C-alpha cells in the first residue's frame, strides 16, 4: 500500500512576473516499508518535492495522497494534524532547540500533539538512536552526528508512518554520514518508511529505490535492489 502517492505534482514560484518551475508534473509514490532516496544537482527541485510531499508547501497543481488522504486543498489546520500524525521530518541544520536537552528536544513533538509525556517511549527512542547516555546533554554539548540523531529521534517520537529527511548528512563528515545512513537502514529494516534527499550518491545507493531529479522532473527511477552495480550509476556519480 502507498504511504505517499503524488500525481502530476507541479510547483511554480513567482518572482515578480517571472515564473519558476520547481516541479514539473512529477509522479511519485512510496510504498509502506520502503526506503527511497532522491538525488539531483542543486536547484533540481529535491527540497521543493520533499516540502510538497511533507505538506509543508502546497503544490500549484496535481494531487497528493498521504496515507490514503487527499491533501490538496486541505486547510492548514487539517494539514497540521495530518503532518503530526503521519510524518517525521529531519533537516540538514538539525533545528534543535539550544536550551532544551536531547531528551527534551525529542519530547517536543509530544507537547504539540498533546500526548502525555511517556518517559519509557522517550527512553526507547533515545536507545533507538544510540543516545541513551546523552539524554541530558544540551545540543551545544553534542557532536554533529549526535545532534542529527537527536533530530531523528524527534522525528520518530510520534510514531510516524513516514520519515522525510532533507540532506540529513549535508553538515556531517563522511564517517558520521555513513553512521546516519546505517541508522536509517536499520530503522527501515524495522519497518519504517523513509524518503531521503541527498547529494551523496554512495549513501543514496543504500536505499531500495532512487529517484533522480533534474530541472524539476524525475529523470529516472532506479530500483536499486535490481540495478546495484550497473555502470550508469557510475555515470551519475560524475553528474552529482
Amino acid at each position, binding site marked *: 500500500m502507498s504511504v505517499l502517492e503524488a500525481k502530476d505534482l507541479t510547483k511554480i514560484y513567482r518572482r515578480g512576473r517571472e515564473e519558476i518551475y520547481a516541479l514539473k508534473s512529477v509522479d511519485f509514490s512510496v510504498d509502506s516499508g520502503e526506503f527511497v532516496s532522491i538525488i539531483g544537482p*542543486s*536547484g533540481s527541485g*529535491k*527540497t*521543493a518535492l520533499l*516540502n510538497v510531499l*511533507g505538506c*509543508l*508547501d502546497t503544490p500549484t497543481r496535481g494531487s497528493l495522497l498521504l496515507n490514503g488522504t487527499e491533501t490538496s486543498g486541505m486547510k*492548514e*489546520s487539517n494539514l*497540521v494534524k495530518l*503532518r*503530526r500524525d503521519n510524518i*517525521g*521530518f529531519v*533537516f*540538514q*541544520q538539525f*533545528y534543535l*532547540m*539550544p*536550551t*532544551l536537552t536531547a531528551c*527534551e528536544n525529542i*519530547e*517536543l*513533538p509530544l*507537547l*504539540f*500533539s498533546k500526548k502525555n*509525556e511517556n518517559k519509557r517511549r522517550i527512553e526507547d527512542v533515545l536507545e533507538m538512536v544510540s543516545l541513551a547516555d546523552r539524554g541530558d546533554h544540551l545540543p551545544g554539548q553534542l557532536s554533529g552526528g549526535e545532534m542529527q540523531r537527536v533530530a531523528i529521534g*524527534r*522525528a520518530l517520537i*510520534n510514531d510516524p508512518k513516514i520519515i522525510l529527511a*532533507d540532506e540529513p548528512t549535508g553538515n556531517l563528515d563522511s564517517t558520521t554520514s555513513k553512521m546516519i545512513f546505517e541508522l536509517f537502514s536499520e530503522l527501515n529494516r524495522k519497518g519504517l518508511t523513509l524518503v531521503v534527499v541527498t547529494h551523496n550518491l554512495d549513501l543514496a545507493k543504500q536505499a531500495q529505490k532512487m529517484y533522480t531529479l533534474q530541472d524539476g522532473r524525475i529523470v529516472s527511477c532506479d530500483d536499486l535492489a535490481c540495478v546495484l552495480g550497473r555502470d550508469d550509476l557510475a555515470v551519475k556519480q560524475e553528474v552529482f
Partner: protein
Amino acid sequence: MNFLTLAAKNLLRRRGRTLLTVMGVAIAVSVLFSLLALNSGYEKELNKEVNSLGAHILAVPKGCPYEAASLVIHGGVIPKYLSEADLHNISKINGIELATPILMHQFIRQDAKTGKDVPHIVYGIKIDEMRALKPWWKVQGRYFTDNETNIMLVGRGLADKENLTVGMILPAGPFKNFTIIGILDRIGDQDDNFHFVPLAEVQRVFNKEGKITTVAVKVKDINQISEISDKLEKIPDIQVVTMTQIMGTIMNMAGSAKSLLLTVIAIALIISAFGIINTLLMSVNERTREFGMMKAIGASGMDIGRMVMAETVFITVIGGLIGTIAAIVGSSLIEGFVKGMLPYSPRGSLISLSPELIAFSLVFSVALGLICGIYPAFKSSRLTPMEAIRGGIE
C-alpha cells in the same frame, strides 16, 4: 515539559535582551504603582489631616482663606488676628455646638543634641473645648486647666524626638521653666508634633493679649454648615472656610499636578509597551526557521502563538513583580519627588500600599503582556511552514 517551561527556556536564550525588556516593564509598572499608591494615599492623608482638626468650619482673618486654613492645619503663623469680640459674635450664632479660639505661634528653640535652631509650633487652646473637638485625645500624665500657668502638653512625636518626659521643666526658649504635665498619645497626624498651652499663657508669652488666630467651629447639624457659614461671613473681618471647601480646593490644586504626572506615566507605559512589542517582534523574526521546524513537527499556529504569548506574559509578570517591589522599597524616594511637585502635601505618608493595589499592578502587567503579545503572537502564528523554513533551505 509544557508551554511555560518552553517559553521560559526560550527567554533564557537571550538573557541580556530579556533582562532589558523586563526592566522596561518594571520601570513602567513601578511608576504606575507609585502614582496609584500616591493617589489613594494623598486623598486619605488629606482627609485625615483635615478631619483631625475636629471642626467643621474655620473662621479666619480676612485674606487668603485657604492659606490660613492650611496654616491652621499644618501649624504656622498667620500675621493677622481675630479678636475675642469676634469669638463672642461667632458664639451667638444659632446652630453652633462649639466655637473655640486658637492662637498659633511659632518659636525657635535650640536642639539639645545638635545645637541647631529648630522651629516649633505652639497652640494656645481652651482645653475642655479642644477635648470636645478632639475626643480621640488621650494623655499620659494629665491635662491642664485653662487657668494654670507655666504648664504645657506636648505631642508624642515631639516628645520622642526631643526626649521630653512628663514632669520635665523646659530649660530654654520662650517657654523656659514651663513644666510638661502631659504627653498626648500618638495620633498619627500633625498634633503629634505640637506644643499645647492654655490660650491665655500663649497670649501672655507672645504679647498677643486678646488676639486669636482662628476660631474652630463645630456645628450641631452638618446639613446646616453652609447656612451657618453664610451667617459667619456677615461678621466683619471674618472669612470662613469649611472643611469640604478645603478638601475640594486642595484636591483641585493637586489635580493639575497629578494630571501632569498621569501624562508622564501614560507616556512611560506607551514607550514600554512599544519596547516589549519591538523585542518580541525581533525575537519572532529571528526565530522564523525555528517556528517552521516546530510547525513541521506538529505545532499549530495556535501553539506557536501561545508560546510567544507565554513568553510575553513571563516578561511582563516578572517585570511587574520587580516594578511593584521596587516601588514599595523606593516609595520614600518617589514620595519626596512628588511632594515637591504638589502645591499642598499632607504631613503623613502619601504612599498608601494596599493588597488591592499590589494585585492591580500585577493584573495590569499581565494585561500589558497580553496586549503587547497579541501582534507578535498573531504574526508568528500566521507563518506558513514554508514561509518560516524557506530561508534555511535551498
